[in-house]
């Protein structure tokens, strides 16, 4: 299990390779990479700045990762989240999970990114033609996280 919150970019290939290095019990590695998207049309953004809550961010990501390990038989996992100013096309977040079989790896990877979006204390400030604007939370993200509720 590993959590990193950093300003620097990361290499998804290297991160995935590191997960399975020297291990012969891993049959599946699933990953998700989030990128800064440039919106089409008038409100297009030129960049965004990610603010976070140092300390609480790492703590929440570790809790979310531990929850994934509790729910699925995972052999390894990694979460990398960047902060600071990022331009369209740049990588923001990386999640990878490793398991003996693909189902656990795929499901837990989706779970991690869905939960992270609604629980990790990050905030996006978008820079566009009309100035700076804080991004509003999306209901669709809450719904995506809610589908992982255990008692639903």
């Amino acid at each position, binding site marked *: 299990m590993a959590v990193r919150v950093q300003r620097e970019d990361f290499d998804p290939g290297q991160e995935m390779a590191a997960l399975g290095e020297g291990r012969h019990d891993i049959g599946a590695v699933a990953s998700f990479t989030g990128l800064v998207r440039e919106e089409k049309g008038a409100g297009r953004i030129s960049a965004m700045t990610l603010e976070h809550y140092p300390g609480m961010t790492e703590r929440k990501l570790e809790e979310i990762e531990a929850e994934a390990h509790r729910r699925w038989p995972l052999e390894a996992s990694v979460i990398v989240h960047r902060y600071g100013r990022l331009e369209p096309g740049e990588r923001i*977040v990386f999640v990878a999970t490793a398991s003996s079989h693909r189902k656990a790896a795929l499901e837990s990877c989706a779970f991690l990114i869905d939960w992270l979006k609604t629980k990790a204390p990050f905030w996006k400030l978008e820079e566009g033609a009309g100035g700076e604007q804080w991004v509003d939370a999306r209901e669709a993200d809450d719904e995506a996280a809610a589908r992982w509720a255990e008692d639903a």
Partner: protein
Amino acid sequence: MTTLQVRYFAWMRTRVGTGAESVEAPDTVRDVAGLMDWLEGRSPGHAKAFARREAVRIAVNQDYVEADHPVAKGDEVAFFPPVTGG
């Protein structure tokens, strides 16, 4: 008096005008809701930040809590909008 470390993030921070402040809250402040009532009176920026309570999320000592959570001397209380990472 209760000494508290208060943190603000995203538009809460820009409205209040600072990301962190140490405050001496009166003894009548017993929970986060009471703290918000008291903080609101500190400046026009604070008032603007706390105007829409339903949009404010709270953490005490870096764990999410609701407004009825008690506050005690030395607590770190953070206020911020719903998170938008990932």
